[in-house]
């Protein structure tokens, strides 16, 4: 057990994670998650779709953060990416961070989810840079907008897609780089991402539905082996970006879009 990684996985990390319900609020509003049983099903489905994808992207980012200090390693290990994306952003580490960020965009068709991911990425980046200085985090911050540029207007403004990098780098990219900065491996970055994909949603459900916290905790414990299995799969081949999992969850996409239009909501997403 590494305390730095425990800090990164902790929901008390001041990175704004509490403002996001992982799709539980819109699902509850739609009457699709109402009790412990439906929550358990929701968490399991979320883990093997969005959870797997974000864990794989976090593992890729962690691996790249470790290697990006050494451009020779980058060229050797990520030759495919450099070849495929040679026209974009040059052949330096900075251009490749943009490519990895675009890999998140490509796996996130829902504009509402892209906005939520960038908001969480931006908040986590601020904490991580203060806590674990690392060149990879600096490279990500170099392209993030200043805080005053953050759009905090009504739904219409929030719907606006700020384009690649606008609004902050995507959350799994920052999470992977932060895990690397804290000394973690890609497998550990994947584990933190997979774990976070269900714990945040579970605690939101307790608040939204008034579920018994002990029962929800037990439901999470039942999922523990699945979380480990997803993390192992997610970190299997972190350097082949194009081939990383891209499992979609059409229900989550639709719920996320509906959520942004609802009048009353407790959570950002």
């Amino acid at each position: 057990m590494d305390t730095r990684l425990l800090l990164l996985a902790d929901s008390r990390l001041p990175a704004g994670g509490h403002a996001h319900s992982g799709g539980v609020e819109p699902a509850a509003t739609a009457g699709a998650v109402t009790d412990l049983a439906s929550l358990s099903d929701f968490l399991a489905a979320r883990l093997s779709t969005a959870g797997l994808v974000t864990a794989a992207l976090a593992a890729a980012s962690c691996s790249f953060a470790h290697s990006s200090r050494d451009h020779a390693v980058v060229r050797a290990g990520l030759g495919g990416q450099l070849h495929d994306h040679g026209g974009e952003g040059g052949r330096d580490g900075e251009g490749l961070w943009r490519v990895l960020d675009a890999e998140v965009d490509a796996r996130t068709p829902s504009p509402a989810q892209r906005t939520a991911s960038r908001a969480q990425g931006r908040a986590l980046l601020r904490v991580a840079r203060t806590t674990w200085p690392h060149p990879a985090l600096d490279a990500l911050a170099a392209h993030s907008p200043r805080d005053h540029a953050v759009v905090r207007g009504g739904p219409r403004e929030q719907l606006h897609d700020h384009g690649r990098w606008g609004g902050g780098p995507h959350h799994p990219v920052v999470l992977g780089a932060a895990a690397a900065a804290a000394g973690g491996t890609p497998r550990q970055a994947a584990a933190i991402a997979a774990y976070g994909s269900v714990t945040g949603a579970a605690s939101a459900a307790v608040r939204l539905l008034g579920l018994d916290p002990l029962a929800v905790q037990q439901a999470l414990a039942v999922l523990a082996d699945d979380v480990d299995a997803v993390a192992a799969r997610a970190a299997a081949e972190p350097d082949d970006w194009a081939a990383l999992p891209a499992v979609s969850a059409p229900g989550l996409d639709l719920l996320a879009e509906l959520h942004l239009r609802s009048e009353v909501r407790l959570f950002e997403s």
Partner: protein
Amino acid sequence: MTAKTAARYRARAAVTAERDRHGRTRLTRLRSDGPLAVREAEGAVYLVGAAAGPLGGDDLGLDLEVGPGARLAVRSAATTLTLPGDGESRFTVRARVGAGGHLDFAPEPVVAVAGCHHRAVTEITLAEGATLRWRDELILGRYRERPGRHTSRIDVTLAGLPLLRHELRLDDPGVYGGVAVLGTARAAGTLLLVGTGLVGEPVTGEGLAVMPLAGPGVLISATAGDSAALRRRLCQGESAATPAGDLPSALQDARAATPHH
């Protein structure tokens, strides 16, 4: 016919569309192979099933090449049934579209039959300025039938950058039957539009999400109780994605385009 006695196919069909010096599209390659037959008719190239399936163990591929400035529409004559057999069946489509080219791929739905074990892989490479209309429709089993294992993934790059990587995995009913994925829907589909002049803000409806991508494209995602309702929702989404009177010119042209030999 049983799977054990059925011959396994390994087939590669191909279509190439090129723009000639008069600006017209010519089909310079139209290659059928085994159970995958391609025929030119009514302004489109039709995929015609020359045999049942794919069956488990079959490995089928289709290569589509659309040269710069050329236009190609691909349809199919009937629904495709993915059938059980000896191992996994696979259908790989690779498409390349050159600058100013347009590919409109909209075959009839695929039905994931009980006991099937199928993987559909689609890799699309778009040059800068290429446009695309790509439809995927999946029916979860025949009437009152639970589908077999079915995975479909589409990867689209535009000018070397990833635009969409999207996989629908039906392997665990406990996962895909949940509200997070398909819920109780019996049909799911997507329509991807790539080009300019598409809607910039998301639109939602019952079982329908019209989602502008980070790049120049819109993904229309729909679920429904049956294939007819699915098609209606995708059409509704396409109308919403292409604002009236403001159809992307490339898409507009493609609807009237007729390939010539």
